[in-house]
């Protein structure tokens, strides 16, 4: 199955194209909250409500990102396994996921007044850096062979 898929150039390209669409929506739901945490999205007081709704988008689009991402890996498992950029992307992804479901979730779901002002800012900045890093290193996998 993996062999047929690998040899079908257009199927691979279409999967990757759909992966990018899912990544876009996922990143949008990350950024809309992070920009507010940074204080660059104006009204801080509404970020908890927006974060709750964004979380639903993250779950659905995250599922789509996985469904379109895993076949790319299984079709080229040995090549990706040997790629340092792929390993870097996966490490960054693991860090971004852990950060998002722990610290970021706490801070994004809290009312602004209960936290020291530097905290939401720091969490927003780290989150943007991690997730953009995942996206950038993902694109770079294709250049690293």
């Amino acid at each position, binding site marked *: 199955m993996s062999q047929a898929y690998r040899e079908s*150039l*257009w199927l*691979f*390209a*279409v999967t*990757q*194209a*759909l992966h*990018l*669409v899912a*990544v*876009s*929506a*996922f*990143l*949008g*739901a*990350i*950024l*809309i909250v992070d*920009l*507010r945490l940074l204080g*660059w*999205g*104006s*009204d801080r007081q*509404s970020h908890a*409500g*927006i974060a709750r*709704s*964004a979380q*639903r*988008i993250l779950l659905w689009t995250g599922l789509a990102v996985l469904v379109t991402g895993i076949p790319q890996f299984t079709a080229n498992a040995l090549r990706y396994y040997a790629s340092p950029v792929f390993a870097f992307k996966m490490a960054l992804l693991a860090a971004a996921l852990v950060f998002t479901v722990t610290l970021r979730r706490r801070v994004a779901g809290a009312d602004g007044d209960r936290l020291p002002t530097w905290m939401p800012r720091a969490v927003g900045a780290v989150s943007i850096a991690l997730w*953009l890093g995942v*996206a*950038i290193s993902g*694109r*770079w996998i294709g*250049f690293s062979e």
Partner: protein
Amino acid sequence: MPSILPALEWLEALAWATAIRESNWGYPIMETAHVASIVAFAGLVMVMDLRLVGLAFAQTPLTRIQRPLFPWQMAGFALSGVTGLLLFVVDPLRYYGNVFFRVKLVLLALAGFNALGFHLTIFRTVGRWDEDPLVPTTARLAGAVSLLFWSVIIVSGRLIASNWFD
């Protein structure tokens, strides 16, 4: 109709375009910046569209979603536009005849008209429906069309690189 091919050939032969095209890092860096900025930009547009079609942020007034995002959408669009233009200028003949490149350009224009139409018509009355979880049909339609167009733009952008019609 005069062909624009000679102009593209002239562009491609420019010393700086040739230098970037033939350098090891020029294309990967421009392409990565283009992809990163376009997914960030499209994502910020899509979250607004999801509010318009009623799939997210229903409890938040539309303008409190959109106004703070606007400068970031513009910044993302500017960066993806500049990097996209650079990618084209240093290797114009590679893209010119590519069917997915043409589809992408047409849809970019259509997405622009959709956004312009939205802002010049239904969005002017936003004060009356800003807080409604379900916005007027025209606005919902503009959101759905935008989601569709930007998705197809991203898909055709990716497919430019693997054009099996060549």
